[in-house]
C-alpha cells in the first residue's frame, strides 16, 4: 500500500496562496481556518530586511504526536496511505492534539471568529455542524474529518483523502498533468501555478517525489521532534528556505 507524501519546492513557490484558497474551497473551511497556509516571515532589521514565505499543510507525520496523545483514538493514522485523520464522531474537543502538534496545523472552530463578519452567523446551521454554506462540497465523511465541521471537534488537512484514496490502484505519482489522475490530486497541489507542489508514493522507489527528495536533498520540518513528516521541502539556495525557528522573527526583540 502506498505511503502518500508531498514535496514542496520552496525555490519555485511564489507565495501566491492559490493552495490555501483551493484547500479552503475544496474542503469548505471557515475563514481563518487555514488547513493549508503560506506563512510569511520577515527577517533582519531595516534596511537589511528580507521577506520569506513558507507553505505549510499538515505533515501527516509517520509518528504523529497528535495521534499518540489523543485519549479517544479519534485522531488516527490510516495504515492504507498513511493519512492522519480525525474521526469527528469520537473527538471530544479536548484540544490535546492541538497542543501536541509541533506544526500548529489543527483547528478548533467553536472559538470567536477570526474574521468578521462571523460567517457562521451569516449562514447558520440547523444541525450539529458549525455553519451551512450555500456551496458545499459533495464529500461528507465525519469519520475521517471530511465535510462541514461539527461543533466541539478538531479539524485538520486530510491530504485530500476523498480524492487521493480513490486513485486507481498502482498509481505512484498523482500529477495533475496526467489526465486520468488529475481528479485524484490534492486540491492544493493541483492548483499550484508554478508547480511547486508534488504528491506521490514515498514507499515506491521510482516515484517522482522520491527522485525530487534525493536530487534536491529534501528536508523535513523540525525533524528533531521525531514526528517524521511525510511532507518534504526542497530549497536549493535561492531566496526561500525552511525556517529554522517556528516564529522566525527577531527573537532578540523581547
Amino acid at each position: 500500500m502506498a505511503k502518500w507524501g508531498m514535496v514542496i519546492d520552496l525555490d519555485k513557490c511564489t507565495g501566491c496562496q492559490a493552495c490555501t484558497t483551493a484547500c479552503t474551497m475544496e474542503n469548505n473551511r471557515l475563514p481563518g481556518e487555514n488547513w493549508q497556509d503560506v506563512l510569511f516571515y520577515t527577517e533582519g532589521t531595516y534596511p537589511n530586511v528580507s521577506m520569506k514565505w513558507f507553505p505549510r499543510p499538515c505533515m501527516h507525520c509517520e509518528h504523529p504526536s497528535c495521534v499518540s496523545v489523543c485519549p479517544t483514538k479519534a485522531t488516527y493514522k490510516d495504515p492504507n496511505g498513511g493519512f492522519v485523520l480525525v474521526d469527528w464522531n469520537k473527538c471530544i474537543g479536548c484540544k490535546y492534539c492541538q497542543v501536541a502538534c509541533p506544526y500548529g496545523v489543527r483547528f478548533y472552530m467553536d472559538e470567536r471568529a477570526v474574521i468578521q463578519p462571523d460567517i457562521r452567523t451569516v449562514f447558520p446551521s440547523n444541525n450539529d455542524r458549525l455553519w451551512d454554506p450555500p456551496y458545499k462540497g459533495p464529500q461528507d465523511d465525519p469519520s475521517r474529518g471530511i465535510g462541514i465541521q461539527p461543533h466541539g471537534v478538531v479539524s485538520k488537512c486530510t491530504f485530500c483523502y476523498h480524492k487521493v484514496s480513490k486513485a486507481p490502484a498502482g498509481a505512484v505519482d498523482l500529477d495533475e498533468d496526467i489526465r486520468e489522475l488529475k481528479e485524484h490530486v490534492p486540491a492544493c497541489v493541483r492548483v499550484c501555478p508554478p508547480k511547486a507542489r508534488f504528491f506521490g508514493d514515498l514507499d515506491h522507489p521510482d516515484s517522482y517525489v522520491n527522485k525530487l527528495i534525493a536530487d534536491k536533498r529534501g528536508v523535513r520540518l523540525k525533524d528533531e521532534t521525531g514526528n517524521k513528516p511525510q511532507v518534504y521541502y526542497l530549497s536549493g539556495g535561492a531566496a526561500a528556505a525552511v525556517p529554522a525557528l517556528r516564529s522566525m522573527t527577531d527573537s532578540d526583540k523581547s
Partner: protein
Amino acid sequence: MTKTTTKEIGTLILALIGVGIVGYLVMQTLGGQGHAAFNTTNLGVHWGLPIVVYDYFLLTSTGLAMIAALAILFGSETFRPIVKRAAWLALAGLAGGVVVLMLELGHPLRALVAIPTSFAFESPLYWKAMTIGVYVLALLILIARMLKADWDAKALRGHAILILVLAMFITAAAGVVYGSNSFRPFWASGDIPVAFIFESLLGGLAFIYFFTYLAYAFDAEAMPEGVKRLFNGALPGLFALAIFVHLLFVLARMVNGLYGNVEGLQVWQHMVTSPLFLAEIFIGLLLPLILMLLAGTRTRPWAQALAALLVMNALLISRYEYIIGGQLVPMFKGTWAPDLLSYMPSTTEWLLLLLAILVSNAINAFGELTLRLGRER
C-alpha cells in the same frame, strides 16, 4: 441545633446560592455563544484558564488524598484529626475541577464513553482520566469506612497505600501531559511529574490548614485539642518544607529559562518582570515561608490561615503561568502572528473559576455538616 451546625448550614446555603447564580450566568453565556465566550484561539493558547482551574483543583485533590493516605500510614494518632477532612476535601476539590472541565470540553458527555472505550494506552490523558475514575471510587469507600467515630487507622493501611499510589500516579500523569512535549521547551522537562507531586502536597497542606480554620469559623479556641496540637506541632514545619521545595522547583525552572536559548524559553524574560509572577514568589511563597519559620508566628492561627490562603493563591498563579506560558510562542504561524501571544481570560472563564470554588465549597460544607469531619473525638 448547635452553634456550629447553624454555621455549617449557613455556609452550605450560601455556597448553593452562589452555585445557582454563577451556574446560571455561565450557562447563559455558554448556551448563547458556546466556546466563543472564551479567549482561547487557534493561534496558540488552546488551553486557557478553565484548564488551569481544572488542573489546579485536580492537583489539590490528589495532594489532599496523598496527605490523608500518608497520615493513615505514618501519622499515628497525631494526624488523625485531619484524615477524614483531607479525604472529603479531596473529593470536593475534584468535583469543582471536573465541573469546569466538563464545560470546557467540546463534547463532555461523549468523553464519558469515548475515553473508557478507546483503550488509547499511548495517551497520558487516557491514563489520567481512567485513574481518576478509580481514585474517586477509592476515596468514597475510604470515607465510608471512616464513618464510625472510632475508625481504626491500622485496618485502613492497605486502602491508604492504594490511594497514595493512585494520587501520585494521577499527579505524575498530569505532569507528563505537559512535560513530554519536547518541542515546547517551556513545559518540557523530565522532572515535571516530580515537581507536580510536590506542588500537590503543598496544595494539600494549605487547603487542610485553611479549611480546618474555616470549619471553626477561624475561631482557634473552638478547635479540638488534637487539631491544635497538630497545627502547632509537626504541621508548620512540614508546611514550610513543602513551600521551600516548591519554590526551589519554580526558581530552578526560572533560572534555566532565563539562561536557555531555545525558542520558547523567551517567555521567561517576560514573565519574571510581571507583577503576577513577583506576587507569586514574594507574597505567595516567601512570605508564608517566613511566617511558618519564625517561632513568633508559626503557631499563631492568623499566621497559619494567612499563609495557607497566600499559598493557595500562589499555586493558582503558578499553574496559570506554567500552562499558559508554554503556549505563548505560536507554532509556525508566521510573522502575522505576534512573537508572543497575549492572553487574558474572558469574564466567562473567570466565572468558571468562581463556579469551581463554589461547587467545592458547597460539597465541603455538606461534608462538614453530615460527616462530622475531624470531630470524631
